């Protein structure tokens, strides 16, 4: 019997799958981008609440964090997917008038993804905030700066440098996490692949093509973050001493 490699895996077919998948990249990126915004805002909020040990809110934030980190993202997506409409129906039974079907599936997905990632991002932020030398905060306080000014001028700029690698991880995690959104019926690249593979049963080629696409997106994001990190980093070598007559 004469079998060829291409019977099992057709490189040509794999390449031909890529342009079809690329068409759905905007959906993937949109999902990741919106979820990123949610994760940054909620994550920073949780981080500051826990950093400042705000009464009442701090234990709530900690419990939320524990729940989000302790359950799989897929389960959370399902809970959001079935749970949010259920809650809205309860509201409706109380007399509200919300058409559950009008809420785009995207909303469930980026909320679930965003909140999940917020839990991890908040820890990145908190560690970064705590890495700022308490002495610098004290020096700024002694100068007569208000806490708001210190947060804005000293703590956050310094924490940001330390948080960047973690934020990069979080963005990459989100991009890959969007593949789970296919379970909510959102046609992003993973779902697109399933649709296409369902026609000719060439799953392997499709998934390899998909892996390549995710990988490339991730590499591009890493490069972008490297550039941003470089901008924020204090140079290793000092600049030259500025020679002046009276210095």
């Amino acid at each position, binding site marked *: 019997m004469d079998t060829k490699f291409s019977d099992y895996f057709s490189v040509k077919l794999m390449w031909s799958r890529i342009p079809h998948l690329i068409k759905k990249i905007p959906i993937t990126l949109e999902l990741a981008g919106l979820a990123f915004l949610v994760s940054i805002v909620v994550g920073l909020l949780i981080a500051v609440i826990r950093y400042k040990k705000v009464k009442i809110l701090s234990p709530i934030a900690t419990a939320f964090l524990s729940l989000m980190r302790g359950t799989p993202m897929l389960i959370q997506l399902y809970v959001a997917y079935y749970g949010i409409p259920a809650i809205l129906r309860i509201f409706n039974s109380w007399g509200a008038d919300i058409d559950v079907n009008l809420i785009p599936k995207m909303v469930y997905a980026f909320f679930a993804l965003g909140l999940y990632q917020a839990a991890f991002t908040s820890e990145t932020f908190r560690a970064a905030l705590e890495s700022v030398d308490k002495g610098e905060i004290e020096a700024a306080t*002694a100068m*007569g700066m*208000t806490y708001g000014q210190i947060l804005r001028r000293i703590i956050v700029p310094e924490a940001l440098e330390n948080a960047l690698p973690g934020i990069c991880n979080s963005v990459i995690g989100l991009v890959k996490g969007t593949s789970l959104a296919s379970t909510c019926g959102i046609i992003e690249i993973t779902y697109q692949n399933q649709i296409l593979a369902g026609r000719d049963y060439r799953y392997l080629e499709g998934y390899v093509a998909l892996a390549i696409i995710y990988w490339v997106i991730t590499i591009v994001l890493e490069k972008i973050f490297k550039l941003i990190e470089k901008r924020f980093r204090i140079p290793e070598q000092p600049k030259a*001493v500025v020679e002046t007559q*009276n210095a």
Partner: protein
Amino acid sequence: MAILTLKDIHKSFRDNVVLNGIDLSVNKGDIIGIVGPSGTGKSTLLRSINLLEKPEQGEITFEDINLPLPLQAKNRKKVTELRKRIGMVFQRFYLFEHKTALQNVMEGLITVQKKSKKEAEKLALEALENVGLKAWRNHYPKHLSGGQQQRVAIARTLAMKPDIILLDEPTSALDPELVTEVLTTIKGIAEQGYTMLLVSHEMDFVNKISSRVIFLDGGRIIEDGTPAEVFRHPKTDRAREFFDKMNKLKEPEFFI
């Protein structure tokens, strides 16, 4: 004329009484050396003046600002106002790590004193020149030696033209070879007529630059006078013992 008056200041950390009734009045132009054994509240006293520590009893009066203690929430603005006019230099410098020497000195001028960037830069350069580090203005703290960092910290305080400068063991965190440059800088500033309170274990230096020396023990001022009075003719045994011990350290045979 007293510009700063402390009345009956008490401060404890848990059960540990650190300041036990401090009365002190500081005149304009005074250079007050604060000496005494470790753990007797020297740093706490200094840090109570600008309310980095919050004493639970007493009263602080600085020029037109009056703060009864314990501090009340309504006086928070007054505390900020007081801090704007009293500068502080710390043992471990505490420069802003992500800012250059120049930016460190400019920070307070811009954020606190609301000066324009251009004016802040001009004043900051003057201050850096005053401590002999104008040429290092674009260096980040991590590129500077400990002594240079402390001089930048001094410039950062000087640039704000404070009415009083508090120096909390400014040379204790430095390698011995770097101490001199910082002491020289402080001496230069003392000669410019600034009012200063200096906590230090450099007795010779305190003796040389101070107009008045106070000796703290057990959270109280037990000696108060000119350097000659306190160092040469201490009234209390406690102070005499302490100075004897310090002098012994300097004798060569101690190290053999």
